[in-house]
């Protein structure tokens, strides 16, 4: 069993959803994660709020938020246990983030601390 991180990429992080939309989105996300947790394959995760964020650039330049000149931004991640990258991709298919045009979920294996990876 390997660990994979599913990173949610949003095309436009600044788009503000209505409270009703947020409620629906939250519920969908919980159902999706709950389905993974029901298989005992959920290993944690978190949202990354857009507000009060900074981007640090070379030469001491700090800009507000990851937006503007960056097209995509990361909205959150979860970590799952899976036998293969294919199984992890199957989990990713259910992610509600994918309902948004231009959004994507990046699936990456987490290196083990065993000195091999």
């Amino acid at each position, binding site marked *: 069993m390997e660990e994979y991180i599913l990173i949610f990429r949003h095309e436009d992080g600044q788009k503000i959803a209505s409270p009703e939309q947020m409620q629906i989105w939250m519920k969908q996300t*919980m159902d999706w994660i*709950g389905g993974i*947790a*029901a298989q*005992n394959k959920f290993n944690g995760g978190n949202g990354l709020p857009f507000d009060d964020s900074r981007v640090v650039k070379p030469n001491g330049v700090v800009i507000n938020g990851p937006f503007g000149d960056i097209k995509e931004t990361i909205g959150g991640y979860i970590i799952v246990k899976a036998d293969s990258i294919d199984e992890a991709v199957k989990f990713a298919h259910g992610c509600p983030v994918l309902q948004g045009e231009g959004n994507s979920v990046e699936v990456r294996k987490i290196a083990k601390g065993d000195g091999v990876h």
Partner: protein
Amino acid sequence: MENQLIPHLFRTEYRKITSVLCKQFGIEHIEIAEDIASDVFLLAVEVWTYKGVPENPTAWLYAVARNKAKNQLIRNTVFSEKVTKELLHQTDRSVSRFEIDLSDKNISDSQLLMLFTLCHPSIPVESQISLSLRVLCGFGIEEIADAFLTNKASINKRLFRAKERLRTENIPIIFPDEKEIDKRLETVLTTLYLLFNEGYYSESRNEILRNDFCLEAIRLTYLLHENDKTNKPPVNALLALMCFHASRFGARKNNQGELILYDDQDETLWNQELIARGTYLLNLAAQGEIISKYHIEASIAYWHTIKADSKEKWENILQLYNQLLILDYSPIAALNRTYALSKVKGKLAAIAGAEKLNLKNNHFYFTLLGALYEDIDHEKAKMNLQRALSLAKSETDKEIIRQKILKSDHVLK
């Protein structure tokens, strides 16, 4: 003499005497405390049988306990060298004036302290439960063995090892300090939660005993609720959970003692007072930042106190199971979530979810699939139920599954 008087007093007073004495003597002398408490009851049986029950039996028991404790201090040399010196030093009194404090306050404090001591993380959880049942609930070895579906010898061994461990680790009978309290409370709550479940889900046939386990778990949790230092949100959440479950005691069994499943229960038999109590406690538990698994389970149990199906009910239950699984996976929560999913998103969605669960040696899994396929594919429904039957271990579970198979055949005809 009324037949039930001694068993009743034993159940309520044995633990008080043991706790008070043990707190005073130290955990390494727990067996002496237990022996004195047992002797008190032995003497009660002998004396009361011939001379009649005294006017105030409890006061009689306490007076005898005090005397026996005093005699013990004088008689036993090892004991008097080790403990008496210490006690005398503390109290600066001679043995003859030495007092055992059996006031209500000291009794309740002693029980609370013993709860923390017996549920010390240095001993395994099942030993914590057995010890608590024996010392704090006054259950007999045979009763404990019956509940765990094992024999007296193995319970005795378990208790012996646990006491040995408490002795060698030299666990003091003191209240955990502020820094430690939440962590220690966690272990205590786990034990009480399992103690309750032992009664609620046990496969033991002894009905009265099982209810008693649940009531004892409630009583001990209530001790924590009553004390300012331990009246914390997870305690109240667990107590709420117990109240909600206990509210269905009267409706869970038919006249033959067979289990009645939730859907078939007569909700007019549910205890509204306990439901109200649970609701009050759950509101009380909603303080603070931490959501424990008891909060989530109590909230699920709350929704189950409303018998009628509604979209709101099942959507809430589904979300709560999602939360519970994220916090703490268990196969039974995964199966219950799947059932909630069928209520919210339909049976086909639930079947798709169930197939991913990987619980192929769990009979509840196949019982659930049987129920989900019920109106969709009769053959598959029956096949799953039969598979469940072959995996079920207890007679109660087998009987429930057999009934379901019969019912489904009946529907087809």
